[in-house]
């Protein structure tokens, strides 16, 4: 076995640092312009410092050691999530916090790293196949269910990152598409667009019949498929209107932005859009954002922090931040493509996928495309759990990235 050390993926480290420092700058200007003394940016500096220290330690130890601990990580994360459910603190209606040594912490964030790690390790030891991929995805089921038990919808959804990543080893991508489609249909049903859905299905059916009119043998599948989808949609509608109690329906409607709740979710979305729209092309300038300075957008340091970026640095700033994120994701995927260890490749896909899911759900919400489900913007939102968790992901990746050959076995 040749041991030839490969360079670490410095670009990812650089992008990581740019995003983290930008986050602190943004928090600093929010703090200063909106009266200051909230201590938010100072604490974020502290979290970044802790993350960097932890990251340095990770870079020091051997990757094999990390891998051998993956079982332990996973078990600890799951146990902590259980603790959070049983006796954790409730913040914003989410039972997801445990207090360790005076710090509040969300174990679900740790579970994401642990799941990425253990899934990568488990799948890498097996032959890549659909079965392997589907079985590997099961590692995400337990933490996702626990997150649901914590009423943390957003985090539960981010575990969809695992099957998404495993499309790399053969997870059927059609299933991913179907899952997304199902989610969108659910949103449409809750929003009361069932009529339009049914019309859409009818039109689709006609178009498909026209397309396949020459190949008669497919017609029955087409027909069966559309009927199945229609039945699923109708049963969703039935469940929504008949099984759920009116207040539950109400809550879901607010979630998809259908119900105008002036101080609730709808208010957040409107003010978020206002702040972003007010930014325009070049933004108002750092610390000059009117909506940001006067706290129009609730949660503007955490889940809605992108509003501050978009208002104060405009479309240009928002685009740069997006480019940084997509660069981070693609850089990891492309960098490991030359790597000969399947584990590193799968791991890179997994964490890239977690980044992607977070960004999709968070920016989708902030930009008014998806329902208001609170999850942080990776490395950017104020919060120690998120910062530490994504830093762990990145530094473990950096550790793996430099040892292209030792991991080959």
């Amino acid at each position: 076995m040749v041991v030839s050390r490969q360079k670490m993926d410095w670009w990812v480290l650089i992008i990581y640092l740019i995003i983290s420092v930008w986050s602190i700058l943004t928090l600093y200007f929010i703090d200063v312009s909106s009266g200051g003394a909230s201590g938010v940016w100072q604490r974020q500096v502290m979290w970044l410092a802790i993350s960097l220290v932890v990251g340095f330690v990770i870079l020091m130890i051997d990757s094999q050691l990390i891998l051998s601990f993956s079982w332990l990580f996973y078990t600890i994360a799951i146990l902590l999530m259980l603790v959070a459910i049983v006796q954790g603190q409730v913040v914003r209606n989410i039972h997801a916090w445990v207090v360790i040594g005076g710090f509040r912490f969300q174990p679900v964030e740790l579970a994401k790293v642990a799941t990425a790690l253990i899934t990568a390790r488990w799948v890498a030891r097996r032959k890549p196949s659909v079965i392997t991929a589907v079985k590997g995805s099961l590692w995400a089921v337990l933490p996702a269910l626990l997150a649901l038990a914590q009423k943390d919808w957003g985090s539960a959804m981010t575990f969809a990152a695992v099957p998404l990543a495993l499309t790399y080893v053969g997870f059927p991508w059609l299933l991913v598409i179907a899952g997304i489609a199902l989610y969108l249909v659910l949103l449409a049903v809750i929003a009361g667009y069932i009529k339009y859905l049914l019309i859409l299905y009818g039109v689709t059916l006609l178009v498909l019949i026209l397309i396949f009119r020459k190949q008669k043998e497919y017609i029955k599948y087409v027909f069966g498929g559309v009927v199945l989808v229609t039945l699923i949609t109708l049963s969703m509608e039935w469940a929504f209107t008949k099984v759920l109690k009116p207040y539950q329906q109400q809550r879901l409607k607010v979630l998809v932005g259908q119900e105008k709740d002036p101080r609730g979710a709808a208010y957040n979305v409107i003010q978020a859009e206002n702040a972003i729209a007010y930014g325009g092309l070049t933004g108002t300038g750092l610390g000059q954002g009117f909506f940001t300075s006067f706290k129009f957008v609730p949660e503007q340091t955490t889940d809605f922090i992108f509003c501050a970026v978009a208002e104060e640095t405009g479309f240009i700033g928002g685009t740069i931040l997006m480019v940084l994120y997509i660069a981070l994701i693609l850089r990891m995927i492309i960098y490991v493509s030359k790597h000969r260890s399947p584990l590193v490749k799968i791991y890179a896909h997994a964490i890239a996928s977690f980044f992607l899911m977070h960004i999709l759900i968070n920016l989708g919400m902030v930009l008014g495309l998806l329902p208001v489900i609170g999850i942080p913007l990776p490395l950017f939102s104020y919060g120690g759990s998120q910062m530490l968790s994504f830093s762990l992901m990145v530094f473990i990746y950096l550790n793996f990235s430099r040892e292209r050959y030792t991991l080959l076995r």
Partner: protein
Amino acid sequence: MKKLEDYSKFFVGFAIAVFLILWIRLAYIQLYASALKERAEQYIVEKKVVKPPRGLIYDRYDSILVANEPAYDIMVVPARLEIKDTKFVASLLGLSVQEFKERLQRAKRYSRIVASPILSAVHPSHFHTMQTYLSMIPGFTFRRGFIRKYYNGHLAHVVGYMTEVSKEDLEKDSFYMPGDFIGRTGLEHFYELELRGQKGIRYVLVDAFGRERGAYANGKYDIPPVPGKSLYTTIDPNLQSFASSLMEGKRGAIVAIEPATGEILAFVSSPDFSLDSFWHNNRSSYYVKLLNQPDKPLFNRGVSATYPPGSTIKPLQTLFAFKMNVINHYTSWFCPGAWVRGSLTVKCHGSHFLTTPKEAIQHSCNSFYCEVFYRALSRYAEGHRKALMQWKEYLNEFGFGKKTGVDIRGEKPGLVPDTSYYDRMYGTWWKPTTIISLAIGQGEWLATPIQLATYVSVIANGGWFVKPHFVRKIDTFMLEWDSVKIDIPEKDLQHVRDGMKKVIEEGTARIAKIPDIEWAGKTGTAQNPHGEDHSLFVGFAPLDSPRIAVAVMVENGGFGSRWAAPIASFIVEYYLKGSIDSSRLWLLERVKQPIKYEQ
């Protein structure tokens, strides 16, 4: 068996698709959707109305009479309101809990998210204590405004009061908004359009709590308010105060006019009221109190009260008789103490032998005027109806029976009866004797004090009728007031003026004689079926080149010589000499006594 690809094409494609969708959405919101940008601005840009300062009011010497003082409107935004202790807040605002809730309800009906006033025009002294507490309660905001400051306390009936706009005002004129004030009487009402100015608009940035956070676009779109125009009045403030002091404790009116110009020098309607109180916190209860007072202080007796003019119009009747050619300057008359025609007897005070008509004025001889009026009415072969209509038209020229057009609210036309009036009253059978009491200013004839003052101005002014007025100039714009020459031979006027001079020198108003001032006047006593007669006097001074004409009316004052004549003499003396001669101070003491009224 599937080989590991270099990387997942699906994943990369998916990631790029996600970012593209998010990026396009960002571009849409920030670059394309102007409606979203407009909505964003609606949230933070508030259009605020800036109230202009109301026009000032000056006296005839360009000194200030009415100015503005900063005040505050207390506003509520119902949607943001969080009141824990309603009772405390209500008492802080000086309202009952009931009233407070009603006002809050009204504000809610107007808008839940826009601030509307709950208490307007709060005096700064009250405001500062209110602000201390109210600024701690979410939902209360404050707005700068103005209240009136009065430099002369005796101008209530001239300047007039202001109250908060009513629902009707709001519907009628879009200029007004809830909480605005509008002139209700006097000059404030008559010149409302000039005084109110134009409202300005200011665009300000407001935060999520509705607090102002600076100007929008550096005030580029702001429209500054245009202050109201100033009124330059004709009021002599010292004479006004002096005249008011003479009327204290009495009911009645004084109108003093500069005959040549029609400028009103002093205008008193008594009892008076306090304009300052209309700006106090308890203004509504003050208003109700005034309304319920039996002596009706809000009633403007100077222009709205009508009385029989009594003997004050005898000079006018003399002029009419000259015009009708039923007497000349040498007509003599023996008064036996009454005028008797058939079964009708009109009494006179004593018996006189008069050698000229002016002596009739001097002695206010009833029988002479009955005779003369009877002759005038019988002047035409076709009957008395034509003559009565001529008489009515003649009186109209002097300002009787119609509004003089004075520039304050509430003027009454009075009444000069004509043929159709008597036809309605009696049918067509009435005869000159039926209406003979018109000869001595009694009967159906009704006149306001301003009409009496205007009429005596005409006599003083060589027959020129000048519309009486309070305002000579608006900002820099001089007002032109109508004047009409009435066709009266100068020698007739001279004759009448001589008679009026004799009234003071050796006639019914000797008590009104002023050392060193030669002047003229005529007493009157208006019969009052409800109680003591009203005391009246009209006059002008100095005799040769009159500078002041005055009409005085004291309700239930008895003879004209008892109250009205001395009061008029003091007005004249004070205006022309600036002080009262020491020989007349005893009389001044006397006329300053209040009159005891039965409620």
